[in-house]
């Protein structure tokens, strides 16, 4: 029972972690809480189903559908920056204005999905059908293994991009001082748009994986994952990639334990209560570094 809860928690945690990574990337660069971020999680899953219905309900259809969903979500996300958020930045709008703008974008996307697909729960056909195996007392499905593998690969890739590439250096520079970054020759707007593209793609991928895991799509899946990702990001120390991953896992495991041992009704309440306690006791998050500010 304990072990099983842990494995289930880790699987949900993987999804949270992936969404959180994208979320924390944008926060890291712009200090912007992107409320639209979780919408790409849902949009990705729905688009993938649509593409599969067009191409074919098999592995090929799934793969092409996933790629299509990722590209569409990434493009939409990059466009929102080019057409809306970037304009607000350029006009010197307050940070909170951009935040409200992302809330507007979220409202549009989430409700456009309801408009296009209807509000009833939809099936996500599992094309792999790989079965499951046992480790000790717990049952693990191959789907869980796939999700974990893909997620870990993506996390490693993104960590590499941010830590080792010029693109990543540019991102970090922008996050700390935009003017100076420009003066170093960093193409600020281009990098920000790519960051939006990448973050939404990862979110969409996560939506596809989790959709396939639960085999259902619901119209409230975005809002459910959104506040969790938000919480996980802060828990791990916002702006820190490994922190985002750990934060995601902690929230996932915590939830599944509370649901298993306390009451599923209070599942979210306790997750948030723990979060509040952590933030009050350790404001910089689990992995966040405490910086000594010069006065």
């Amino acid at each position, binding site marked *: 029972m304990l072990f099983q809860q842990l494995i289930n928690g880790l699987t949900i945690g993987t999804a949270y972690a992936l969404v959180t990574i994208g979320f924390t990337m944008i926060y890291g660069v712009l200090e912007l809480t992107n409320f639209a971020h979780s919408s790409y999680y849902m949009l990705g899953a729905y688009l993938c189903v649509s593409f599969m219905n067009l191409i074919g309900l098999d592995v090929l259809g799934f793969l092409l559908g996933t790629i299509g969903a990722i590209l569409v979500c990434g493009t939409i996300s990059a466009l929102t920056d080019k057409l809306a958020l970037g304009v607000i930045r350029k006009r010197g709008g307050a940070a909170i204005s951009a935040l409200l703008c992302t809330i507007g974008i979220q409202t549009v996307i989430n409700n456009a999905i309801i*408009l296009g697909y209807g509000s009833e729960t939809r099936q996500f056909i599992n094309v792999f059908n790989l079965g499951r195996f046992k480790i000790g007392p717990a049952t693990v499905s191959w789907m869980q293994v796939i999700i974990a593998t893909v997620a870990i690969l993506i996390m490693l890739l993104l960590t590499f991009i941010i830590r080792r590439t010029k693109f990543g250096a540019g991102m970090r520079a922008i996050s700390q001082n935009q003017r100076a970054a420009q003066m170093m020759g960093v193409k600020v707007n281009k990098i920000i748009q790519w960051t939006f593209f990448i973050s939404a793609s990862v979110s969409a991928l996560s939506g596809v994986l989790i959709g396939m895991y639960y085999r259902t799509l619901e119209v409230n899946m975005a*809002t459910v994952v959104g506040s969790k990702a938000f919480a996980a990001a802060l828990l791990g120390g916002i702006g820190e990639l490994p922190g985002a991953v750990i934060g995601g896992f902690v929230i996932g495991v915590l939830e599944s334990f509370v649901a298993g041992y306390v009451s599923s009704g209070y599942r979210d309440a306790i997750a*948030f209560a723990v979060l509040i306690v952590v933030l009050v006791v350790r404001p910089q998050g689990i992995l966040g570094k405490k910086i000594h500010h010069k006065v």
Partner: protein
Amino acid sequence: MKKLFSKSIKRIIEKWAVNEWKVAFSCLIIALALPIVLNTRYLLSVMTICCVNSILAVSLNMLTGYLGITSLGHAAFYGLGAYTAAILGTRFELNIIVTLPAGMIIAGIAAFLLGLAAIRAPSRHLAIITLGFCEIVKIVELNWFSFTGGANGIHSVPRISLLGWDLSGKYAKYYLALFLLILTISTISLIMHSKIGRAIYSIRDNEIAAESMGVNVFSYKLFVFTFSAMFAGLAGAFYAHHFSYVSPLSFTFEQSIVLLSMVILGGIGSMPGTIIGAIILSLLPELLRDFTTWRQVIYGAIIVILMVARPSGMLGKYNFKHIRQQVKYSKLLTKNENKPLEKMTG
């Protein structure tokens, strides 16, 4: 053309700022007279909701606009006020003269305790801490069945009456809501125009400098956090009596976001702006009622377009008090010297 447009806007804003009292008074007269024309139950109810939302937005603006703390959990205090009034009303059959202050106090106590623990945290953490608090309150409301009625909520909250007078008529309720709104606006304005207000603004602009000038940042933050929650509690208590029904779904984190949108849309830190924002976002869903399926999409799109068009909200760029002073001062200069303000542009 564009220049002409922005110039005329500037002139209007200047006029408005100089005559702020007159404008406010005229608005009050209009608000008092409106029921003569708009006299159906539906319209009066919409106007009452505008007042309730304005109370919420104005109180949130004190926290977010004046002090600079973004709260995503204002609806929690709104809900606490509503549940307090509903429970006191249904179980003890208490009158609004008790339930309204009780709603304020319970919301205030909750905010005080939360603030005591968390208000020192950085602003971005407070956003998520308040969000978390909002979710927790909702979940408790949903699950503490014996006390809150769970998802069913609480029905038949007593009608509004005062000293034996029945105030539950459509007109009475509107005027009561308007009265509460004026009470909120004047209390907050008076505070913001005093040394307390200056201290609050200074914290928003530079915490370390404020602290170094002798402003006790912690207690001021706690004060504003508690104070703004109390008015949310007041709005909630009125809401419970107005609809005679409360349900956890009215006080979710999404509702907090709507409240925050009102503040930002109207212009953060601007009292008239906040009220305009509250009225627009209260009316918008009603206006879009005929487009049920498209309603939310249009609603979201309008927010995006408005924010792109005016990134600082409608009135966010204008501080009426400062504009008034500047206009007065430049008049003084031109009168004395009869020449342009060379010194001021140096």
